[in-house]
C-alpha cells in the first residue's frame, strides 16, 4: 500500500460525508432485509420445534409461549429418530471416507502416472461430468446392487451416494498437478516406492483439497433425499434423517403434528449447522474450489 493511497483513504474517512453515511445506512438496510430473508425459515424451524401444534397452525407469537422440549423426546422416541440419526451418521461418514480415499488415490495416479488407457479413461470421466441424466439413473444402480445382492444393506446406500466421483477426481487431479514434481523425484531417489511417494508426499500435501472433498461429500450425503429415499424404500429401518423427516408429512398424524415435523427438521439441520459453524471458512473456500462441480 503506497503512502499516497493510505493518505487518500484517511482523507476519505475524515470526509465521511452525508452521502457516504446514507450509502452505509442503505447498504445495511439492504443487507438486513437479506439476512432476515435468509434466516427466517431456519429460525422458524428451530423455534417452531418447541411450539405446540396449535401455536403453529392457528397462530401464535414469534417465540413459543412455553418451550416444549418434549417435542424432541417425541421425535426421538416415538418417531424413531434415534435410529435415523444413527443411520445418517454412519452413512455420511462412510460416504465421506469412501469419497476421500478413492478420489485421492485415483487423482494421484491420474496426475502423475502414464498408463495404458489413460486417455480413454480421462475422456470417459470428463463426459460423465457433462452428461446428466438425473435421478433416473438410480433405477439401474438399484438393479445392479440387487444383482450383487447388497441392496438390503446400508452399503448399497453408501455406494449409491458416493457415486462415480468424476468431478472430485478431476479436482484432486488438478490440485496434485500443482504439487512440484521434484518432491516425488527426490523421494524416489531416497528409495521410496510409488506407495511411499503417495503416502509421504502427495497425501499430506493434498490435505486442503481432500478437506474440500470431505466437507462436500459429507454435506451431500447428509442432505440427500432422493437417493436415500429410493435405496431405502422397502427397508425402512435403513432410512436416513432427511427421508424420515419428509416422510413425516405422510405419517399417521402428520396434519396434526407440525411441531413434530419441525422437531424432525431441526434434528436434521442442527448437526450440519454445528459443522458449519466450525468450518464455514472451509465451506466457503471449498465451494469456490468445487466450482467445477456445479
Amino acid at each position, binding site marked *: 500500500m503506497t503512502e499516497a493511497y493510505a493518505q487518500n483513504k484517511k482523507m476519505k474517512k475524515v470526509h465521511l460525508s452525508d452521502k457516504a453515511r446514507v450509502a452505509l445506512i442503505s447498504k445495511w438496510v*439492504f443487507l438486513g432485509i437479506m439476512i432476515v430473508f435468509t434466516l427466517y*425459515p431456519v429460525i422458524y424451524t428451530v423455534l417452531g420445534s418447541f411450539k405446540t401444534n396449535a401455536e403453529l397452525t392457528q397462530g401464535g407469537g414469534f417465540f413459543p409461549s412455553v418451550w416444549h422440549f418434549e417435542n424432541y423426546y417425541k421425535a426421538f422416541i416415538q418417531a424413531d429418530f434415534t435410529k435415523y440419526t444413527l443411520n445418517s451418521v454412519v452413512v455420511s461418514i462412510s460416504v465421506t471416507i469412501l469419497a476421500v480415499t478413492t478420489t485421492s488415490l485415483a487423482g494421484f495416479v491420474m496426475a502423475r502416472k502414464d498408463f495404458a488407457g489413460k486417455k480413454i479413461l480421462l475422456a470417459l470421466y470428463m463426459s*460423465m461430468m457433462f452428461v*446428466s441424466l438425473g435421478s*433416473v*439413473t438410480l433405477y439401474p444402480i438399484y438393479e445392479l446392487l440387487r444383482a450383487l445382492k447388497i441392496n438390503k444393506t446400508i452399503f448399497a446406500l453408501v455406494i449409491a451416494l458416493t457415486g462415480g466421483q468424476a468431478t472430485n477426481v478431476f479436482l484432486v487431479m488438478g490440485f496434485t498437478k500443482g504439487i512440484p514434481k521434484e518432491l516425488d523425484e527426490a523421494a524416489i531417489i531416497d528409495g521410496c516406492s510409488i*506407495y511411499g511417494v503417495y503416502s509421504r508426499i502427495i497425501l499430506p500435501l493434498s490435505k486442503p483439497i481432500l478437506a474440500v472433498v470431505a466437507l462436500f461429500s459429507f454435506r451431500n450425503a447428509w442432505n440427500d433425499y432422493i437417493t436415500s429415499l429410493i435405496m431405502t424404500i422397502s427397508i425402512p429401518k435403513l432410512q436416513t434423517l432427511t427421508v424420515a423427516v419428509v416422510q413425516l408429512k405422510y405419517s399417521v398424524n402428520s396434519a396434526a403434528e407440525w411441531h413434530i415435523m419441525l422437531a424432525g427438521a431441526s434434528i436434521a439441520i442442527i448437526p450440519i449447522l454445528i459443522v458449519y459453524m466450525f468450518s464455514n471458512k472451509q465451506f466457503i473456500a471449498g465451494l469456490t474450489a468445487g466450482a467445477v462441480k456445479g
Partner: protein
Amino acid sequence: MKETISRNLRIKKTLKHNLQTYSFLLPNLILFTACSLYPVVWTLKYVFYQYGGYGTGKPIFVGIANLARVFRDKVYWESVLHTFTYGFGKVLIIIPLAFFLAFLLNQQKRGNGVTQSIMFLPTIMSSAVMGLVFYLLFNAYNGEVNKYLLESGIISRPVNWLGKDHAMKTLILTAVWGGVGNYMVYFIAGIQQISEDAIESARIDGAGKLQTIWYIIVPMLGPILKIIMMLAITSAFNDITNVMVLTEGGPNNATMVMSLYGYRYFFPISAAEATVPQYGYGAAVSVVSAAIAGVVTVIYLKVSKKLDDIY
C-alpha cells in the same frame, strides 16, 4: 541375449508399474463404472424398449417409438418450457443479487464476514427438509406468510402460494433462497482477483460507484462471470429435490420441470400418485432432456465466446 533380458525386464517393469497404477485407480474405477457408466449405458439401451419393471414380463423392443413419443408429448414440452422459466427466473434474480451482495461484502470490513457466513448458510441445508419447511410456510390456509400478509393488511384473502398461478414464483423464490449465497461466494472470489489498484485508480479518476462497477468490475469479472452463469444454468436444469418436495410438479403440472418429468416414469413423485412405471419411456425422456441441457450449454458457450470477441 542381453537385449532380450533387458526387454523382458522392461516389460516386467511396465507391467508392474501398470499394476501398481491400476491398484490405485481400482477403487474409484469400480464406483465410477457402477454408478456413472453403467446407468448411462442402461438408460441408452432402454430408450429402445417398453418395460414396466420386475413382474410385468420381459422388456419389448420398440425401436425409436419411445423417442417419437417424446416429440409428440405435449406435457413433456410444457415441462421443458417450465424448466426454462424456472431456470431463467432463478438465474435472472440470483446472479444480480449475488453480485450485488458480493460487491457489498467483498472487503474486509466489520460485519461483512458474519454476513457472508449467514448468506451462505442455506447452501448447507437439505433442500428436501427446507422444502418441507417452505411447504408449511407458504401453505394457503395456515402458513406464516399468509398470516403476516393478512395481519399487515397487504392482502385481504389468503393467497394460494402453491396454487397454479403462484407456484412457480414461490418455487423460484425458494430456489433463490437456497442458492444466492453460493453464487455470492463465487463472485467474491472473482472480485478479489481484480487488483485493488484498478478499482482505486478508477476512483481517483473520478468514477462514481456505479461507473466503477459497470466499467471496471464487470468487464474484469468477464471470464469468471461466464463460468458462474454456466454453473447457474446447468444447476437449474438439474434441480429436482426442491420441486419434488414443495409442489410435486403441480398443480396441474404448473411446476413440472423436465428432470422431474423423466423421474415420474421411474418412480412416483408423490407418494399418493398411482403411476405405473414406464422405464423405457422414462429413459427416452431423460436422454432427450440431457440432450437439451447439452445443447443449451453449447449455445451458451458459443454466445459467450462471441461476446469475448467483441470486448
